[in-house]
């Protein structure tokens, strides 16, 4: 199926109108470089064939709908209300392009303005863009922005950042010879080591300090103290949030003296999709607006004075500034941002708080159940975690996997599966459990029973 309406007669008509053969139109393409064969890809499938073929292929995957998962580590399975599924497939959201012509794009512009507003409310900052590719690339751009603002290539990154994010930071930092300085965590508490941070800040000029909260171990950092310290030395404080549900009830932004808050908003209604598309968010203070990456929608009026929206602060962007742009980003993850807006609207502020609370309670419930079984030990003395926790077990990972499979649950993230500097400080048989609202208390009891029994 080729979706081409042009008939053979119409093709003839066009060629007659332009007075050339099709071959004439290809004249600029050198003969010797042209393809002389048919491409070696499969012949077309009909819609019936395609559907059968794809469903068979997908049957090679596990039927994930039959399982809960205890994996998090940067991507979370949360409940997605039907409003999200229904509204995010509306055709004028799905099949429009970037709202370059505002008079015909008010739906998307307003939805993105609302997304920005949600992010500002939740991060406690003044301006947010209308999405980035994902949490990791959003954080990488924040670091580059801090370097533009502070003119030093030294950036401090908490060791307790998601190691996959750190890999992306390294990639973005490498061409600019950015010096990524390690801020260690306290091996007892899992929290960023403030004394070490002060030593680093004293020793050199630092553009920014990056701390994740909850951090990779699920632990909520003492952001306020870090923020004060960072500002004492006139650096910028960048906070990363990989689990956006935490935004509902934790302090960020001005209350913790953060200058930039970035993160991953997949948890706001986006399917986990084997890793993508998810979406990054990016928020900062108004004074730094002109150094921000990404598209920003602003409020204005039309010729009749009616409120309308338009892409604004455009002189930062690549299509205008070319190599002097604040970022190369053009396409972002607009539809995922709209999905997030639908999710946040459906839940409302109270619904989102309920989900956050439910996550915390259930994660702590499972944690305590596992610990009292004596088959698991906490890695850190500090129990101030959000919906993820790190434990070590006497059971083998294979054993855990098998036991969990019996109660239709997929195993937690296994630290051994990643290779990174973290492994030196954390035993590689540590397990990172993520618990969200999709588990019922009864299901958690079963997990405690099979793992602890």
């Amino acid at each position, binding site marked *: 199926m080729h979706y081409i*309406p042009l008939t053979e007669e119409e093709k003839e008509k066009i060629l007659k109108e*332009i007075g050339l053969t099709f071959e004439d139109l290809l004249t600029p393409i050198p003969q010797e470089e042209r393809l002389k064969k048919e491409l070696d890809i499969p012949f077309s499938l009909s819609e019936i064939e395609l559907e059968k073929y794809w469903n068979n292929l997908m049957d090679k995957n596990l039927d994930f709908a039959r399982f809960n998962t205890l994996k998090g580590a940067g991507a979370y399975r949360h409940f997605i209300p039907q409003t999200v599924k229904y509204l995010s497939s509306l055709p004028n959201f*799905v099949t429009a392009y970037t709202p370059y*012509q505002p008079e015909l794009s008010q739906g998307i512009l307003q939805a993105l303005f609302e997304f920005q507003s949600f992010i500002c409310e939740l991060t406690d900052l003044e301006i947010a863009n209308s999405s980035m590719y994902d949490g990791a690339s959003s954080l990488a751009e924040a670091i580059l922005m801090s370097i533009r603002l502070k003119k030093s290539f030294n950036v401090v990154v908490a060791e307790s950042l998601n190691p996959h994010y750190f890999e992306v930071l390294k*990639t973005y930092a490498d061409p600019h010879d950015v010096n990524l300085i390690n801020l260690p965590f306290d091996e007892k508490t899992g929290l960023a080591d403030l004394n070490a941070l002060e030593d680093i800040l004293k020793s050199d000029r630092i553009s920014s300090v990056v701390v994740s909260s909850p951090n990779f171990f699920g632990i909520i950092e003492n952001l306020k103290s870090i923020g004060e310290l960072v500002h004492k030395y006139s650096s910028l404080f960048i906070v990363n949030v990989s689990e956006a549900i935490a935004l509902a009830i934790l302090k960020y932004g001005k209350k913790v003296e953060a200058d930039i808050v970035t993160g991953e908003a997949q948890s706001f209604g986006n399917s986990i999709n084997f890793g993508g598309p*998810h979406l990054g968010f990016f928020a900062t203070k108004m004074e730094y607006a002109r150094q921000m990456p990404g598209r920003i929608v602003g409020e204005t009026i039309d010729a009749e004075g009616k409120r309308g929206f338009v892409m604004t602060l455009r002189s930062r962007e690549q299509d205008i500034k070319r190599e002097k742009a604040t970022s190369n980003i053009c396409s*972002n993850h*607009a539809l995922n941002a709209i999905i997030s807006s639908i999710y946040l609207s459906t839940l409302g502020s109270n619904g989102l708080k309920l989900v956050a609370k439910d996550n915390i309670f259930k994660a702590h419930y499972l944690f305590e159940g596992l610990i009292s079984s004596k088959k698991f030990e906490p890695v850190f003395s500090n129990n101030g975690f959000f919906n993820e926790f790190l434990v070590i077990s006497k059971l083998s990972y294979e054993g855990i996997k098998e036991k969990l499979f019996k109660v239709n649950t997929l195993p937690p993230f296994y630290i051994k599966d990643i290779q990174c500097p973290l492994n030196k400080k954390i035993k590689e048989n540590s397990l990172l459990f993520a618990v969200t609202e999709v588990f019922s208390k009864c299901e958690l009891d079963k997990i405690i029973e099979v793992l602890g029994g």
Partner: protein
Amino acid sequence: MELIFEKGKKSRKGFSFKEEKFDYKLEELIPEDALDLEKDYLEISEPEVVRHFVNLNELNYSVDKGFYPLGSCTMKYNPKINEALSLNQKMALSHPFDKEENNQGTLKFMYELENFLKEITKMDRFTLAPSAGAHGEFTGMLIIRKYFKEKGEARKKVLIPDSAHGTNPASAAMANFEVVEVKSDERGGVSIKELERLMDENVAALMLTNPNTVGFFDENIQKIQEIVHKKGGLLYYDGANLNALLGIVRPGDMGFDVIHLNLHKTFSTPHGGGGPGSGVVGVKEFLAPYLPVPIVEKKENKDEYFLNYDLSLSIGKVNGFYGNVQVLAKAYLYILSVGRENLRLISEAAILNANYILKRLKNYYPPAYDRTCMHEVVLSTKQYQNYGISLLDVAKRLMDYGFHPPTIYFPHFPPYAEEVMMIEPTETENLETIDKFIDALISIAKEIEANPQILKEAPHNTLFKRIDATKAAREPIVRYQKNKEK
């Protein structure tokens, strides 16, 4: 329309959720000074939410609604079957760290998609990770950077034609290359004289879009290839306009070393109001070790697939996981449904449609260069400046005729490309629509002479009249604020 925050009422609920009872208090579990329970911005019911977004949807134009001839954006029809199938829960619910054995279907399609793209472009390996075209460019630039670093060559410059998309120089700059602009010649291609002058051992690559943004296939491609390679540089292909070349000529056969493709353009995945897209990157064999990790591999002689992190010279990871897998699925399904016998027809129809528009409109809106085009055509409104009419006025007036305007004010490189609109009809428009669009532009040309005022105040028939972008930039309001004075 009211903002969502201006709707709803205290104590309304839109979310069906039951709290389970636990003997916990938040304050006991979370460090007290970390808690913020005051984030109250919206309480609204489900019916209100549904109406809000359905009405927002109504305020927007889309390719499902009508002709959307944005040049270089390839706003083609997005087949519905691909949307439906890409939602399969066996993929949608899969965590990226779930075991490979549980994701064999997904990994297999990713592996096969790479094979299809290799054949279509004649490249040797692909990474499917980059999230968008610009992200692909950045990835490609990092690969080139690392390649020369390994070779011990300190090449600091990247050459980019003045006709290139803004993302090209921005991506090269993000990879810390110095950008050097190459002028176009009087036929709209890269000036060979300029290229020869600028190309030296300090140049890492030339980034080329072909067909370029003026809609021409660069007839000097062999010469260009020779000049760049002779000095040890690499040739980068921006695949934004690949929709013109399917089954006709392949970047790999033209001598390109690194390419990116926009799956949301040529391979029909929807644009979603500005994303998510996918900017996969293909390389020739000698650059394969530099690709970002992981890449999808097949076990020898087995129908088994895995993620390979073991690339000796990899530039590292470019995003958190493996790319926009759901978008990749739509592109894969599109290729399967189009099939080998139809792929070339896409480009043929796209080229015919663009040349038809060129032929019928050239007397009203002269092209920057008098030649036939590929899949898109660039026309100028410059002559109407005498009537006080700008390109923007023409674009806004087109809305009154029911069309989304083309890309405007791009490309921009005087003296050739000024006040130009870039029109890309794609292969999925029927001739009746294209004729109506042409007739609208002819009618507008006549209006300019008879009554230019009607253009200056356009659009008239849209729900929103001309939007004041200057006000938005001067007094930025970028979020809703409850207590803001009205």
